[in-house]
C-alpha cells in the first residue's frame, strides 16, 4: 500500500463528522462568559529572553561589585573573552528555552537537558583550557564557600526570571524548571568568575561548574513539587 493511499484513508476518516454534545459547549461558553475581559498578551520571545539575560548579568555584576572584581582583574583579556562569551551564549539559549517552555506552542529550541549538559561541558572545557594550576590547596573549604556564594546568587536570578515570566504557562513544568535553573546557575557562575581569584583548575572545574547542575536540579525539583501540589488540588 502506497503512502498516498494511507493519506487518503486517514483523510477520509478525518473528514467524518465528530459531533460534540451542544449542551457541553454551551456549558463551557457560559462558564467563561463572566470573565471574558481584555487581556494583554505576552511580549515577543526575544524581548523576554533579552530581559532575562540582562537581569542575570545585573545579579552577577551586583554580587561582584559588592564582593570585589578580583577574579576579573586577574584574568587576561583573552581569558575574559573565552570565559564570558560561552556563558553569555548559553545564558541566551537557556533564556530562550525558558521562554519556549513557558509559552505553549512556541518554536522548540534546544532541550533543557541538552542545554544543561552542553553548557556544563563547554565551561569545563574552557576552564581546562585556561587554568593550568593543578594544586588542590584548601580544596573543600574554599570550594564549599564558592559553591554557596554561586548558589546564593543563583537564587535571586531564579526568582527574577520567574517574575519576568510569571504570567506564562508551562506545558512541561519540569523542563521549564530545568531551563530556569540552568539560567540562574549561569548567573551564579558569572558572579564567581568575576569575583573568585582562586585560579586552581580543580577548584574552578569542580566547585564553580557545579553551581549550574545544582541550580538546574533545584529548579526542576521545585517545578515538580509545584506540579504535584497543583495536581493534588
Amino acid at each position: 500500500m502506497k503512502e498516498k493511499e494511507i493519506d487518503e484513508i486517514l483523510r477520509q476518516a478525518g473528514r467524518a463528522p465528530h459531533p460534540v454534545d451542544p449542551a457541553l459547549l454551551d456549558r463551557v461558553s457560559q462558564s467563561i462568559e463572566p470573565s471574558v475581559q481584555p487581556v494583554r498578551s505576552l511580549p515577543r520571545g526575544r524581548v523576554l529572553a533579552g530581559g532575562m539575560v540582562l537581569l542575570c548579568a545585573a545579579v552577577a555584576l551586583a554580587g561582584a561589585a559588592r564582593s570585589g572584581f578580583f577574579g576579573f582583574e586577574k584574568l587576561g583579556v583573552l581569558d575574559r573573552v573565552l570565559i564570558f562569551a560561552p556563558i553569555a551564549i548559553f545564558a541566551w539559549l537557556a533564556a530562550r528555552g525558558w521562554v519556549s517552555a513557558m509559552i505553549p506552542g512556541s518554536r522548540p529550541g534546544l532541550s533543557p537537558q541538552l542545554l544543561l549538559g552542553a553548557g556544563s561541558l563547554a565551561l569545563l572545557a574552557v576552564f581546562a583550557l585556561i587554568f593550568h594550576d593543578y594544586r588542590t590547596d584548601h580544596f573543600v573549604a574554599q570550594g564549599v564557600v564558592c559553591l554557596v556564594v554561586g548558589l546564593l546568587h543563583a537564587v535571586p536570578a531564579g526568582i527574577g526570571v520567574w517574575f519576568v515570566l510569571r504570567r506564562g504557562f508551562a506545558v512541561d513544568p519540569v523542563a521549564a524548571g530545568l531551563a530556569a535553573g540552568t539560567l540562574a546557575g549561569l548567573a551564579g557562575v558569572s558572579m564567581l568568575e568575576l569575583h573568585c581569584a582562586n585560579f586552581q583548575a580543580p577548584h574552578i572545574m569542580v566547585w564553580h561548574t557545579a553551581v549550574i547542575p545544582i541550580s538546574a536540579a533545584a529548579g526542576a525539583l521545585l517545578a515538580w513539587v509545584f506540579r504535584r501540589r497543583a495536581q493534588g488540588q
Partner: protein
Amino acid sequence: MQPNGDLEMLMVRYQQGDFTAATDLIHWLSPQLHRFFVIQSASRTDADDLLQETWLRIHEVRHTYRPGEPVLPWFYAIARHIRVDHYRKALRTAGREGRLERMPEAAAAGSPGPGPMPDLATLLAPLPESQREVIEMLKVAGMSLEEVARATSSSVGSVKQKAHRAYERLRERLSAMGLNPGARGGIS
C-alpha cells in the same frame, strides 16, 4: 475546518474581550479537540471532561497566545498538557494501569478482516500514543510538521520520524485488513 487566519483573528478578538469570538472558537475547535482526546483516551466521557477542562485552561492562559504566531499549536499544546496531566492523576489515584494496558489489546482484538472500514480511533489504536497524536495532528487537524513540532515541544525531525514509523505500522495493518481508499462508505 477553519482556515488558520480566521482562527488567529478570532483568538485576537477573544484576547480583546469579545465573547462572540470566544463562543465561535469553542464551537469551531471543540470537535477536533474532542476527537484528539477520543483518539488518545478511547472514552467519550473522559473526552468530554478533558474538553471542558481544556477550555477552562485556555481561558485562564489566553494571554500567553501571541498574535502572529500559529494558533493551532498553541491550542494543541494546552490540550496535550491537560491530557497528560489527567493520565498522571488517574494513574496515581486509581488502578488505572490495568485498564490502560488493556486498551491496545482491545483495539487489536477489534482488528477486523476485510470489510467495512473502522473509524479513525480504531484505525490508530495499535499505534503508540506519541505516534497517534502526531498522525492526528498532521492528517486530521491538518497541521504542518513545524506546527506539530511546536505543539509537542519536539523537533521537526522527531515528528517526521514518528510519522514515518506510524505509516509503516499503518501500512501493515491496512494491508492485513484489505482496505483501499476507494471504499469510502465504510468510514465513520
